[in-house]
């Protein structure tokens, strides 16, 4: 997305096509984020991700072991995590190995951090403004 924006700047102006390109890239990015957060909204799926974070990889039955749910239910959760780009599954013989995909998580974190920066800056301004107002009120007393 950034690169598309930079390309447009190099070209000196935003064409209709480049604006469309940026918007559609952004929309895709937010769709991905929605999927990531929706996938992480379920406690079982978070536990699966947490358990994968503690080791490099795990088989489906290893992942299923701590839960009181049947294997097909675990498979369904893994399907959602896979769709959201949070894990990869690879099959060797009869064993499916599951691994985390850190880049999706990093993207979600980067988005959260950008939100934090955005609001932090505003609250700094609010603080400065309110403190100025307080001083004004006190000097009037």
């Amino acid at each position, binding site marked *: 997305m950034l690169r598309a924006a930079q390309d447009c700047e190099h070209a000196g102006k935003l064409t209709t096509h480049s604006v469309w390109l940026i918007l559609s890239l952004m929309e895709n990015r937010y769709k991905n984020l929605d999927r990531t957060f929706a996938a*992480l*909204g379920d406690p079982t799926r*978070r536990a699966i*991700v947490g358990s994968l974070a503690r080791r490099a990889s795990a088989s489906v039955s290893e992942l299923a072991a701590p839960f009181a749910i049947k294997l097909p239910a675990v498979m369904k959760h893994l399907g959602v995590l896979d769709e959201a780009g949070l894990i990869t599954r690879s099959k060797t013989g009869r064993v499916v190995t599951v691994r985390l995909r850190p880049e999706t*998580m990093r993207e979600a*974190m980067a988005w959260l951090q950008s939100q934090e920066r955005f*609001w932090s800056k505003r609250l700094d301004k609010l603080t*400065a403004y309110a*403190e100025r107002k307080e001083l004004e009120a006190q000097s009037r007393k």
Partner: protein
Amino acid sequence: MTSLTLVRHIRAAPEIVFDAVTTADGIAHWWGPDAGPVLLSESDPRVGGKYRLRFRKLDDTEHECSGEFLVVDPPRRVVLTWRWTVGGADPGESRVEITLRAIGDGTELTFSHSLLQDESAARSHEGGWIGALRKLQAHFSRR
């Protein structure tokens, strides 16, 4: 349901902070992202009342955000919806909640911002994914 919480200690009385958060004049002073001019600021701080803020950034782009007051409880608490109506990158409506508490030399302000894009997003906030993400961040930064 919270996705982001920030706390500030402000050396001003809760009443003053509350006005800064809810009045058109107050909002105009802090909501804008940089030193660019505020083009319009309207606010009707009562339940169901609307606010609207339009500003021009130093890069000459114009932006507007607006929403509705859901809770107005001076000088303690205000809850509002918030969304970009012009020039914003963040789609969907979010919810901003600001609570104020009188402390020794002023006010403790707690700000929280949550997304309400859809049911599943709202549920996922309740589930506390932010905590999960934070824990996992430590893990990934080791790799």
